[in-house]
């Protein structure tokens, strides 16, 4: 497989220029790889058995989606890297996930609030990507969208339960929303990569998706008797898309990558 013919025409110039399609696929794959790993940390620790199974199931879906996006990324790059090479043998600065997904899992309310914010984003983003001009990307997005739809039903129901639950659950999920809000700006911030992909008909108009996202988020948050921060956050955390991460990602990768790096080429 070779790179999409769309890619080189988007960013003309020296070959050292980043391939925007490769970058876009890394962003999509890394978000899911990292968040899937965070969810897997609940395996055996969730508050009830059903939830333990649910979070592990969502983690598996995300890992499967990451595999598809990273495999395609490796093919587009054309340097012989497959999905495992990209997952296990890149350093933190080479990861392109948003910072939202790398934050430590926190308590159950934090995990649910983060998941809900991401799931709504995923549904809207994948819906837009399923009509991408890049056929393989569109196919993967259409498949992942089906899964994102029941992920959001799951996390949304939990936001309702916790928000409209006990004083303690309400307080915790509200605190989580307040803490997470400043990490949501990055989801819809378009850079040169995003604009190039949008112009090529491959990627969506990211900033335009924010209003729809906020409407869907607000609907659930209101019914959960919670409140969203009214204003755009004063301090917006971003940088993940270009490799600037919080300290948390390094620790996560150390755990995720150690087996593959200690035994390169091992199979089991």
């Amino acid at each position, binding site marked *: 497989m070779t790179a999409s013919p769309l890619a080189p025409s988007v960013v003309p110039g020296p070959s050292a220029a980043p391939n925007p399609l490769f970058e876009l696929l890394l962003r999509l794959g890394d978000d899911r790889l990292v968040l899937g790993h965070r969810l897997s940390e609940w395996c055996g620790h969730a508050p009830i058995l*059903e939830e333990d*199974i*649910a979070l*592990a*199931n*969502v*983690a*598996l*879906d*995300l*890992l*499967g*989606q990451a*595999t*598809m996006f990273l495999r395609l990324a490796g093919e587009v790059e054309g340097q012989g890297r497959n999905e495992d090479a990209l997952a296990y043998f890149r350093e933190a600065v080479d990861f392109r996930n948003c910072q939202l997904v790398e934050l430590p899992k926190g308590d159950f309310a934090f995990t649910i609030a983060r998941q809900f914010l991401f799931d*709504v984003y995923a*549904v*809207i983003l994948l*819906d837009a990507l399923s009509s991408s001009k890049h*056929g*393989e990307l*569109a*196919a*993967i997005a*259409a*498949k*992942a969208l*089906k*899964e*994102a*739809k*029941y992920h*959001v*039903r*799951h996390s*949304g*129901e939990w936001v*309702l339960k916790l928000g409209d639950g006990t004083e303690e659950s309400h307080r915790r999920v509200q605190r989580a929303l307040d803490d997470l809000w400043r990490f949501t700006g990055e989801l819809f911030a378009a850079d040169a990569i995003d604009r190039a992909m949008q112009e090529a008909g491959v990627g969506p108009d990211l900033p335009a998706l924010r209003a729809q996202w906020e409407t*869907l988020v607000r*609907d*659930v948050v209101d*019914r959960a008797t919670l409140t969203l921060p009214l204003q755009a956050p004063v301090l917006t955390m971003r940088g993940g898309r270009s490799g600037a991460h919080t300290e948390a990602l390094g620790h996560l990768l150390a755990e995720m990558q150690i087996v593959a790096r200690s035994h390169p080429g091992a199979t089991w």
Partner: protein
Amino acid sequence: MVAGSPPVGRDELLAVLDEVMDPEVPVLSIRELGIVRDVDVDAAGAVTVTVTPTYSGCPAIQVIEEDIRAALAAAGHTDVRIRTVYAPAWTSDWISPAARMKLKAYGIAPPARAEHGALVQLMRRRLAPACPYCESRDTEVRSEFGSTACKAVCWCRGCRQPFEEFKSI
């Protein structure tokens, strides 16, 4: 893809694949589930099986590939290539009425019709399926996530039993 292949060879291959059961829902074959999208054999006898995963994280897909190879090898086909496609995305609507009856007899409520197109209507509660044991509609979905990616956990108030539902996607 089909046009140029010897028809006898193809039918024979499909018959072999009819005997490969899904590892997680062993009453259905991988053809009945719609995992096998196509099979092709070239003049030299090389077989290509086109498959699509049910769920992108389905851990059974590797087992399924091994089972396909084993079944075809037992039928004398050792030059086998397995091609994975993602489009069109797998849907539970591909499960035939006959296969749905098998699911129900096995104690798994068959999937409702999948919704296509329209963007998600957040948080709308879906209808719980009828109990596969007693037909009662007095049921509830306990968890969207069951023993495998493709199943939800339900509860029947009629016969006071838990049961599984094959999710519709």
